[in-house]
């Protein structure tokens, strides 16, 4: 974790942001919990009648939906009492995870990581620490682990409040969650937070201004993720071995868990290595490490056309050409802008 004085310094510096994050996570948790409980109790009031059940069952059979196959009306009524359909021996329970790990669970760690790293850069806190006795790696690591611990603390508290809320608001027999399910949920929370927080820290550490972080970093990251998703859907997900792995529920989950950790660790080490080489004459610009602009340029040339595909008149050639032309134009603008700044950089 590094020097305890540096930890204290990081704590003083980020106390307010951490508090805001904590309050936000707890509020979102309570809102989510209230919504879930309300929906559950509404659902108990509006069960289908026997006639409606039979009609729905027939309709489902016509649509080749096997959900109601081998299910009697009493089974249906029993199922309706459950918040989560019991899957006691499973680590990963999609219906439980999707109730708690929502889109906000992805956004909060990303923004929190970005704000922690970005505000230290934008406010010149990094500059002050670079001049002091502390090593840059020490600052990076201390801030990272401090932020991640606070984040995991807040989100784990959120998970805890939600689970307690379920048991308080719903008869315990019908909550349908086992300890193994909770372990899977906590592992998901850990993986999501680690990866998204690390990505946020990377964007906040490499970009030189809030403008660069949000416009280039977040937008670029989003386009990149979307391109990866496209790639997975078009290639990996139609692959036979992938489908086979996916059918092994918990094994697949463990595989994704390991992938998330490997990716987080890789991004962490690369960002720390880059942070160690930052020279602050580029602050206020787009990138703190201008040499990286070629990497970003190539990245944009790959992900933007691929992600947007045939967006223009459904014509691939036209769409790819316009996308590439836009990236090249943006690249020129970037270089011209930096050249003008260079003239003023020396003081």
């Amino acid at each position: 974790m590094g020097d305890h004085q540096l930890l204290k310094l990081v704590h003083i510096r980020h106390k307010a942001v951490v508090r805001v994050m904590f309050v936000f996570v707890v509020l979102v948790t309570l809102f989510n919990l209230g919504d879930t409980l309300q929906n559950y109790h509404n659902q108990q009031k509006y069960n289908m009648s026997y006639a409606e059940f039979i009609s729905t069952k027939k309709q489902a059979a016509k649509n080749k939906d096997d959900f109601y196959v081998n299910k009697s009306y009493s089974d249906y009524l029993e199922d309706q009492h459950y918040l989560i359909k019991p899957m006691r021996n499973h680590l990963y329970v999609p219906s439980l995870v999707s109730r708690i790990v929502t889109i906000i669970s992805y956004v909060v760690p990303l923004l929190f990581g970005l704000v922690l790293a970005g505000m230290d850069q934008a406010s010149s806190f990094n500059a002050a620490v670079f001049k002091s006795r502390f090593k840059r790696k020490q600052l990076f690591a201390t801030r990272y682990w401090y932020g991640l611990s606070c984040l995991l603390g807040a989100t784990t508290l959120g998970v805890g409040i939600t689970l307690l809320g379920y048991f308080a608001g719903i008869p315990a027999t019908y909550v349908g969650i086992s300890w193994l399910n909770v372990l899977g949920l906590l592992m998901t929370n850990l993986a999501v937070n680690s990866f998204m927080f690390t990505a946020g820290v990377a964007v906040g550490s490499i970009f030189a201004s809030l403008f660069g972080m949000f416009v280039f970093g977040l937008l670029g990251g989003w386009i990149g993720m979307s391109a990866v998703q496209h790639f997975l859907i078009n290639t990996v997900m139609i692959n036979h071995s992938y489908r086979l792995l996916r059918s092994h529920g918990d094994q697949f989950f463990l595989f994704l868990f390991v992938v998330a950790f490997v990716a987080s660790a890789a991004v962490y080490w690369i960002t720390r290595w880059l942070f160690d080489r930052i020279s602050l004459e580029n602050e206020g610009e787009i990138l703190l490490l201008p040499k990286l602009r070629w990497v970003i340029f190539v990245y944009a040339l790959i992900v933007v056309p691929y992600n947007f595909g045939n967006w223009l008149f459904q014509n691939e050639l036209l769409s790819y050409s316009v996308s590439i032309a836009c990236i090249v134009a943006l690249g020129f603008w970037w270089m011209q802008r930096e050249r003008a700044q260079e003239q003023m950089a020396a003081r």
Partner: protein
Amino acid sequence: MSLTVTKLQKKIGNREVLRDISFSLMPGQIVGLVGPNGIGKTTIFRTITRQYIPNGGTVMLDHHDLTKESPQRAAIFYLDQQHLFFRKYALAKIATTYALLYPSFDQSTFSRLIKKFGLAGGQRLQSLSKGYQALVMVALALASQAPYVFLDEPFDGLDVLIRERIVNLVVDAVADGQRTFLIASHNLAELDGLSDRVLFVKEGRISRDLTLENVRQQAVKLQLVFRTKEIPAVIKQHGRILNIRGRVIEVVFPDFTPDVQASLEAEQPVLNESLPLSLSDLFKVEFRKKHAEVG
């Protein structure tokens, strides 16, 4: 404990801002770092303190190279006016923060100084006037107990009274011979009576390293009037004209040898009066082109 900068280089974009910065500082000095705006004084400070990663050269504090990761960097205190992350902090919180950054930071010294300035620990830095902010910066520098303190244009835009308070604080701090101040300024008049040594920065190098006492032994500033309006060859060759008013010429001879004196007397000036040589005069001599228009 000596600080030696050797062949320090820094390139920003394609521009070589620092080409070969070499100098050394010993304890107990007040040294001026002088050059026009935009010459790279701040870049020197930032490169020495590793905000900017140098392209070459070393900064040695005794046997420790400060251009690499080094806990010895706490021996240098440099507050960059453009890099103040604590503008919104209360003064007491700034002190707490700096106590964590600098192990030898003395909070009682800081409290004593701000009390002396009539300030309270609860006041926020951004709520203070420019002059008081400058005093707080100096208080931080003194409380850091760092043996080397870099001040960048510390008197810029300050009134005479605040300037005098800062000068007194700096002089008091150096009195025990343990601390050294390197003060960057584009205005030599500000350093007059404060610095005993001046480093001139020109074209990415330390072009001159002058000890004021030595300079005053070698150089003279004269006010001369000749019978004709024509400027004698000895002045053109050996002198640097600061000012011409009618037939009155103010000139500095950087190296006033007996030969130069004899050549000058041979021109039989109507008026030949010695004037006190200031740092501002030396600045003009160093940075004004030799045959630049004066008047």
